[in-house]
């Protein structure tokens, strides 16, 4: 009954390519969003494409050689980080795999001696990441549902406007946002955390992901609810929202990871030391905190800062890597 806007974003749409960089400044944080928003949905189960004849044993061996080599290249720095965190400073510059002596002194230092305390930074990071995730899920599904399923004048123009915001680099927004949040009184005390949440409260990527997902849900379900006399709100809340769980999960993972890892906005907007998030603390300790080249506690802090995302990755790798792409661009 209702029309899908004619102009469907395509994988080569620069607006979407921009979106890949929307969260958190550099490429580092947000490329997953690029996958989500911009890749064609995988068709069915992925099919291995055999380039030429792979039956040759040598070619297979060569492939494994590269695969294992590159995988090692990925893991070694992290493994070295963990090993170093159990070393003494003296031992940390030696090329030994087993710490001698094995000590948890660096961990004691990282857990107890930092100022602000690691627990405080964890708390700050969590508060911001959870709040940003929540606002993106709530506001994203509101807007996503409206753009996908409700008809109102100006809908397509407004949706294009939302997509166009992906073209705006965060750096251009840095100064205006700084001035605006200060003018709103968010520059002082714990409200500095709120200013980060405000900036990241809704991303076009969240709207886009959820909208695309809502478009794929069969209309019969919605119409059945409507027949039963449910209003738009009830239909949205009781029928559509529960069906959008995969897209909500994707948005949750993306936003949580992006915000937890985020460096740019905390760096710009946070001035009070006790409001530092983990990435900010990690950087500041090294640059100005006298933490300098005290490698073992620095490495222990790196492990602490990365652990929550690592746990998420182990449980939800699908969503990080390909589930996101699948829920991204259907419809």
């Amino acid at each position, binding site marked *: 009954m209702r029309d899908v806007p004619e102009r469907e974003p395509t994988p080569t749409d620069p607006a979407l390519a921009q979106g890949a960089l929307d969260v958190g400044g*550099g490429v580092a944080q947000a490329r997953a969003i690029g996958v989500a928003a911009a890749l064609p949905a995988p068709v069915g189960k992925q099919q291995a494409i055999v380039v030429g004849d792979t039956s040759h044993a040598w070619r297979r061996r060569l492939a494994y050689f590269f695969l294992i080599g590159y995988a090692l290249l990925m893991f070694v720095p992290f493994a070295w980080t963990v090993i170093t965190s159990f070393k003494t400073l003296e031992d940390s510059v030696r090329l030994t795999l087993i710490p001698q002596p094995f000590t948890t002194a660096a961990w004691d230092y990282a857990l107890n001696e930092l100022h602000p305390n690691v627990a405080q930074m964890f708390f700050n990071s969590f508060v911001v990441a959870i709040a940003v995730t929540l606002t993106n899920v709530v506001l994203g599904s509101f807007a996503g549902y*409206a753009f996908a399923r409700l008809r109102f004048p100006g809908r397509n123009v407004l949706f294009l406007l939302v997509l166009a915001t992906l073209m705006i680099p965060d750096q*251009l927004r840095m100064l205006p946002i700084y001035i605006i949040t200060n003018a709103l009184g968010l520059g002082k005390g714990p409200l500095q955390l709120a200013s980060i949440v*405000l900036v990241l409260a809704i991303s076009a990527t969240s709207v886009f992901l959820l909208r695309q997902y809502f478009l794929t849900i069969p209309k019969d379900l919605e119409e059945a609810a409507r027949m039963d006399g449910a209003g738009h709100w009830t239909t949205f809340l009781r029928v559509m929202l529960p069906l959008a769980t995969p897209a909500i999960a994707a948005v949750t993972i993306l936003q949580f990871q992006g915000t937890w890892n985020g460096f740019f906005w905390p760096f710009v907007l946070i001035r009070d030391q006790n409001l530092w998030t983990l990435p900010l603390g990690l950087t500041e300790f090294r640059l100005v905190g006298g933490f300098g080249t005290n490698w073992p506690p620095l490495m222990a802090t790196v492990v602490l800062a990365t652990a929550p995302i690592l746990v998420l990755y182990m449980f939800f790798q699908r969503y990080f890597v390909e589930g996101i792409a699948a829920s991204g661009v259907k419809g």
Partner: protein
Amino acid sequence: MTAASATRPSKVAPKRVGERQEALAGYALIAVPMLLFLVLNIGSILYAAFISVWRWNVRTGPQKFLGLDNYVNALNDPIFRSAVTNTIYYTVIWVPLTMALGLFLAVIVNQKIRGKTFFRGAFYFPSIASSAAISTIWIFILNPFGLFNEVRGVLGLNPLFSLLGYDANQDWLGDYHTAMNGVIILNAWTTSGTFMIFYLASLQAIPHEVYEAAAIDGAGAWDTFWRVTFPLLRPGHFFVATVGIIGGLQLFDQAVQIGNVDGAPANSLMTLVLYLYNAAFKRLQYGYAAAIGVVLFLIIFTATLIQRRIFEGRQPTTA
């Protein structure tokens, strides 16, 4: 359309009332998100453009209308120019390097091999960590007494490095000759897995019949890759290159984490965005900083358009 028609249903009214309610529901749902988008995004860029033509007082706002003076000053500022050079240097080397790595990994992972999921997960792994964590790890590894220098010593590679002019305890990220290259390599390391994921999706979009046809024509693996796969990946190349260029031009996190806000050593890590940050928050020249932001936006926008032109204009077979 009026409230009265809602109370006295006729054959036309229910539809109209339904439409109106639907529109109202739509507006209600998008109200808050749209407000945020309008103020924080659209509003921000208009505001930035406005600030950029003023001498701006940090407390009182606009002070003196300067027209395009801030822009002209930027073009004549040697540090701005070196920031542009550094940023372009980074982008021009980092993007193709990471694309090549990503494509290479994608092609290998896409073969019929065991442990495919494991390898894909492993290659993507560094992408999940924060830039702060990654930078810290690499600062440690590349320090004069770090893992990298130790390992090349053990492998007996030092003579080779001394030929290139590096001694056994080269401070890779602390020496202005090598700092930017160090950042390029660490970011290639972090992002290759992401570009692999992008390329994998593109690879899987190529129909299998194409390869069968190539096989029937007797094309070997090498020919098949360069004549069939590579050209057919054009949308993928476009997407990855665009993401890369936009990201590259915005290099900031690693520059700060490694060289602090001064772009140390010796301005070698001074990027456009870092310079913008300095102008705004160290020198408090808001108008000037806003002008740099607008220039950055225009560069990124132009790069995207040029790239689009190149990739759309070329015939697939010429690649």
